[in-house]
Structure formats: C-alpha cells, structure tokens
C-alpha cells in the first residue's frame, strides 16, 4: 500500500533542489514516492498550489526552501514561512491532517537531511494511509 503513496515535493532551485541532487549523486536511498517539482524560490509557492496537489490526489505535500538568511532572493523563504501557517490553518478546515503537509529548510549540501526528511515523511504518510477527500 505505502508504495502507492503520492508525495508532491516543491523544492526551491537554489537550496533544497540542490540538496535532492546531492542525495542523488551520493546514491543515498530515499522513498521514490516523491514527485519533485522545481520552483525558483519557496517564496513563489502559493497556498493554492498545495491545495491543487491535494485535490489532484497527492497524499502529502512537501515544500523545501533555503535556510532562513540564505534565500537567493533575500526574503523569499520568510514569505513562504508566513504563508505556510495559513496553509496549515486552512488544511485543518478541510479535514486534511496537518502531518500531510510539511516544510523544511534544506541547503544544497544537506543531501543527508533531504534523505532523512523524505524517509520520515514517507513513514508518517504510511501510517496515515492514502488521503480521502
């Protein structure tokens, strides 16, 4: 069952996407359920993208950005971090468990953190099972 879980991962080009790359080139194993979408900045991600992903059948959505202070565009990740709070509030309203939505700061060198995060997220989602809207 848990092999069918769909995770949408929205990763910022400069940090987390690089982190996923690092994990890949180092051949670190992590669950293949995550479908990665590269965005230029976590500050570019709208709440509606998260909702669209869930509506289209994602069981979990992951957002990765640069560590606070490291944003390539100066303050994009601050914007995302504030936005993520409203996403959490809204998801709760629609009966989507808050554990299905996760965001993390991962730098390009932190391949291991990316691997660990994906493992954890996959484990959490396996426990929750597929999302029924």
């Amino acid at each position, binding site marked *: 069952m848990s092999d069918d879980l769909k995770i949408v991962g929205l990763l910022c080009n400069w940090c987390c996407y690089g982190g996923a790359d690092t994990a890949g080139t180092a051949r670190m194993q992590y669950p293949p359920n995550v479908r990665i979408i590269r965005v230029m900045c976590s500050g570019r991600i709208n709440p*509606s993208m998260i*909702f*669209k992903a869930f509506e289209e059948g994602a069981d979990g959505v992951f957002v990765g950005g640069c560590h606070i202070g490291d944003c390539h565009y100066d*303050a994009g990740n601050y914007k995302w*971090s*504030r936005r993520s*709070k*409203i996403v959490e509030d809204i998801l709760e309203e*629609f*009966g989507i468990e808050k554990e299905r939505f996760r965001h993390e700061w991962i730098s390009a060198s932190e391949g291991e953190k990316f691997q660990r995060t994906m493992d954890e997220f996959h484990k959490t989602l396996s426990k929750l099972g597929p999302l029924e809207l």
Partner: protein
Amino acid sequence: MIMSYVLAKAKNEEILKAGECGGAVTSIFKYLLDEGLVDGVLALRPCDDVYDGIPTFITNSEDLLGTAGSYHCAPTMVGDLIQKYFADKKVAVSVKPCDIRSIDELIKRHKINPDNIYTVGLNCGGTVSPVQARKMIDKFYEADPNDVVSEEIDKGQFIIELGDGSEEAVKIHVLEENGYGRRKNCQRCDVKIPRRANIACGNWGAEDGWTFIEINDDVGQELIDGAKNAGFIETKSPSDVAIEGRSKVENIMKKMSKKNQDASYPLVNESDEWNRCISCYACRDICPICWCYKNCELNKPYFKDEKNIPPSPIAFQGVRLSHMSFSCCDCGQCDDVCPMDIPVSLIFDKLQKKYCERTRYVAGVTTDSKPPLYSPDKVEL
C-alpha cells in the same frame, strides 16, 4: 493623535427633523457638498420602503434629506462600490464598521486613494436582513410589515415606528433566541465603532437630539471644525457621564459578540452545507476584498471545474480562503448572496480569527501595517 469627543446637532430645522438623533451626519454631508469639498456623497436612500435601502450617489445637497435616518434592514456594502465606480472621484461616504474595514483593506491594496474619501462612520450594533425583518415583524409584532415607516435599534430592542406614529419594541435577544434578529455575522461582530473612519457618529451616550461624535483623526477634526464654522452644525462637549455611558454600551455589545463567537464554528468537512454549493461564484463576486475580477485564480483553467458540482471545497473555497481570509471584515455579504444559503462568512471569519491569534492582525482595524502575509519584512510567525 488623541481621539476627542464632541456632541453635535444640525442647525437646519428640516435636517434636524428628518435625521436620526440630531442630524449631524446629514449636516456634515451637506457642508461637504455645498463647500465643494467632494464630488458627491454615497449614502443609503430608501427605495420602496424601509427594508429597501439602496446606496445612492448624491451630487445635489437638496437630495440629502432623503438619506437621513437609519436603515438597519439594508445590509449593504460600499467598499467595492467606491473602488469600482468612484475611484477617480472625491467622495464622502457613510460607513458602518464593516464598510470602513473593507475600505481600509482596499486602501492597503492601493485600490482606493485615501486622499479621495471622507468617511463618516456610524456606530453599528448590527443589521437585519430585509426578508428576515419582514418575517420577524409579522411574527413578533402586532404590526403589518408594510406599515413600518422607520426602525431603530436602541437599548437592546428592535423598535419599529408605524404610519400612525405608534411604536412597538421587542428585545433583540428574544428575537435572536428564536432565530430572527440581526444577521449572524453581525451577532458575532465585535467592531461596533468605526474608529478607522474620520469620525464615528452615533447616539450611544448622547442626550436626546444630539449626535455623539468621536473624532478619530486630523481630517475628522477639520470636518467638524469646518462644518461648525460654516454654520451647518452646532457642537458642545459631552459630559463625563455621556462618555462613560457610550463606552458602557460598546462594552456590552462586544461582550455579547464574544459570547456568540464562542458558540459555533464547525469545520468545513463536518458541515453538510458545502455539498449544496453550485459553483456560482456569487460569494467571490460580492466580496469587497476580492478585487481581481477576471484575473481571479478561480477563473484559471487549472481551477475552473465545470464538471464537478458541488466543487471540491478545497479547490474552491480553499483558494479564496488563502487569498483573502486574513483580510475578511465579516460583512456577511457572501452569506446574503449565496443562493443555496451556505453560511460562507463563518469559515472566512473563523480563519481571520485564527490569523489574528497568530499575528494580532485584525482586518481593517490594525492601523500601521499591511496584512503580514504581504509584508516584505524578514519576520517569521
């Protein structure tokens, strides 16, 4: 600036008679029009009867008399009207708290030029939907709804005046216990005095025949001074008892609202009402905060879903919630227009309250900043 209080009443006999408690608001509008300070006044005028108040743009001060008086049964909204139709005009407008809150949010979005409007606030204990008002008068009063010539909310009572001059009053909490009375959003609204308007007027604490005015900013002070010097109103300072009485009324109202807020906020996925949604987009179109119109994200092909009715709530209301719920002024327009009677405003207000807990931001009340979601500042919540 420190706010100051003043009592005012009209000097013009006609206005004094037609206006509610002293006619100061109508006189101030007359002053603005006659002195050429504004192009027009946007105010409510009854059309067929007392339940049928329509926003009217008045350019001739003689027509102002028709707007005097209070209209609790006409829950209108002027924020979007000003933005859509009067953006390039100098306008004076009478505003309920939710009106000024929506105007304030639109100013923050650069949709209304604050230099172009004078806002005369009206203290508001709540409004009644016209259909409900008729039913309620039919049921709880001995009068025929068609005989009502004016209505007033005072001292916790909804008072109607009939054609023959007699009055009838029923306690609002009695009406509300039976599912009538003020609109649901008004019952839980805790902004009763429009302090973001230039001045806030009302009868709370005022002696008979006078309007109690709270001056909120420099423009408000200029307004009062100007109208006084030009001979439109006379003023005097309120006594300490009056000021205390007014804040007492406000506090009682707020306390009642808080009680209603605690009462009922169901989750979207737990309430069946949302299954009734027919995707008519009326709630979006009427919303004073939603100003994108054709560019609305819900019109984009990736969200436009004409096959599924009811629509998936998260891809419809979820998107709207993420766009503007933090700026919801709880005006209740979405409830009023929903053809399927879904209590739409409930969830938007709920999200605004949640957002307020996180950020201390109250839509249209917090003065110094944009909604924190829009801020360029490097702060986390």
